[in-house]
């Protein structure tokens, strides 16, 4: 599983860089022809259980103010996972090299997390399963030149990821009560993780 995830992310990144180098020579935002774009992001997800890092690569095509791409990343909030998603962005110029944009990402979230089980946990097994991934927010883009597509981006948004965990729990006999027929008890945890998302990106 780990190898597959790493391979997918590496492919997304390499393809993105490759296309980006070939297509980003003399482009501007808001152009009417279809153009490839690749953006690499680093950031933080910050929610109830604290802040955690995340990285993403989003690669796709832009036409006019619209961008549609696919993304993959690593999200360390609460449980390490790999979001795989479709990204839609709408740009709006506010200056010669300044742009605002809205983005919405939606897809699936693949867990890459193994619970460390200690005897005190009373758990005999734990398996994580994937779920939905959503994020959205507002961004600011600053182009590095008048005739380049290279730009630095900042976003502030909100992200939601869902994960499911199947556990087999072990229960001793409750004090002063009879033991149930089996000490093993299956349990299903559904996690809805909500966090603010702040990211810095580089587009080329």
């Amino acid at each position, binding site marked *: 599983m780990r190898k597959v995830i790493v391979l997918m992310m590496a492919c997304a990144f390499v393809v993105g860089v490759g296309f980006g180098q070939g297509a980003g020579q003399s482009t501007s935002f808001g152009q009417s022809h279809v153009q490839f774009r690749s953006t690499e992001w680093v950031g933080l997800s910050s929610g109830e259980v604290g802040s955690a890092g995340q990285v993403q690569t989003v690669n796709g095509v832009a036409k006019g103010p619209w961008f549609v791409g696919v993304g993959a990343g690593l999200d360390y909030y609460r449980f390490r996972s790999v979001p795989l998603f479709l990204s839609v962005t709408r740009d709006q110029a506010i200056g010669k090299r300044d742009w605002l944009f809205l983005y919405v990402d939606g897809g699936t979230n693949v867990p890459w997390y193994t619970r460390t089980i200690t005897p005190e946990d009373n758990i005999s097994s734990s398996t994580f399963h994937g779920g939905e991934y959503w994020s959205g927010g507002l961004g600011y883009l600053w182009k590095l030149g008048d005739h380049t597509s290279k730009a630095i981006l900042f976003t502030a948004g909100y992200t939601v990821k869902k994960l499911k965990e199947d556990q087999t729990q072990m229960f001793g006999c409750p004090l002063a009560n009879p033991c149930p027929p089996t000490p093993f*008890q299956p349990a299903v945890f559904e996690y809805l993780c*909500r966090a603010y998302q702040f990211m810095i990106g580089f587009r080329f």
Partner: protein
Amino acid sequence: MRKKVSLLLSALVVMTGSLLILPGCLKDHVTESYQIYEPVYALKTAVLAGINGDPGTPVSQTGQIYVKGSYIYLNDPDKGIHIIDNSDPSNPVQTAFLNIPGNLNIGIRNNILYADMYADVLSIDISNVHQVKILGMVRSFFSSRVFGSDTNYVVANWILKDTNVTVVPQGFVLIPNTNYVTFPSALAAATYSLANSAAASGSASGTGTAGSTAVMTLVGDYLYAIPEEHSLGVIHIADSTNPTQTSLGMAGYDLETIFPIQDKLLLGSKEGVYVYSISNPAQPAKVGEFTHGTACDPVIANSNYAYVTLHTGTYCGAAANELDILNARDISNATLITSYPMTSPTGLCLDGSLLFVCDETVVKVFDVSNPDNLQLLSSVPVNNPNDVIAANHVMMVVAGGGLYQFDYTDPSHIGKLSYLPVNNSKL
């Protein structure tokens, strides 16, 4: 350019501030769904009246094993006792089932079977296994299994209930219909307690052979047992219609098994082996002790040697997985002769110079003629073997998957005779 940098710096300051301030506004949402067993209580009188169960009742789980004559008595933990006609070990036949809720232990003297029903000990006439009779009862003997305040009730069944709780925030759960939180295990215990409160307001002669993991044994007119993990209790059973508890006292720490040898009792504990004299059978007296590292350990012995298996695990400690052989000529001053490494040994038994040891995925058969140099004769594949009784060339193995029987006429070439599987679909 400077204006841009200022703008970006401002944005960074705002984002950093947001990271510090905003997360408190967000809450993750975690739900836990599980099934919980809820006890169904019944009046003891009704339970005792219905103790003759359906002989076709499948074995849902294997527990203690007891052999007397041509019958095997197999405990189905907390459900009862399967009586199996083993006249032909290659074709054992389930002939009766004694529906005794809370049963874990078995002992037979003459045609009287002694069995626990949670905390109580019943004496049952099994002259006719299809129509047994309850003769007497010692109430609340197994003190660790006294449940609830009304001892007229016992748990006769369990029902599964789906449960769904909200976990807030990490590891805690919401108490239903409140804004208070607690640990999931505390909530489960509370559910049991509530159910508990609600229900309470509402042919041959002599003894047989028990497995090495037994916590109850019969010697002469007395029944000896470990009623809770630190005590040794004695019941006088000369009059089976009126069994009477004669003594109960602190006997050691973390007691697990009991094995009679001549006029002694060997009590296996997590810390070692306690030796009690039953020269005065009504009042056992401690005469020796052998200690080892913390591990679970059944113990058996003959007149010369005692054999102890140690296994580690969550509840057992982590001392060792091994077979210890003790010099037992003076059992009161037993000394370690040697140890042999094992994988995860549990029950064991002796037949002459043959030693049988359950060890995780096999039953090992040793020639113990020379304790300093055990000879492994066979490793019989059995998954999760728990206890073994061997006699008359038939080895009976209680394992997680059922009851296995093997022919060890030639200990180097052991052949399977039969297998009675568990069917735990009706838990």
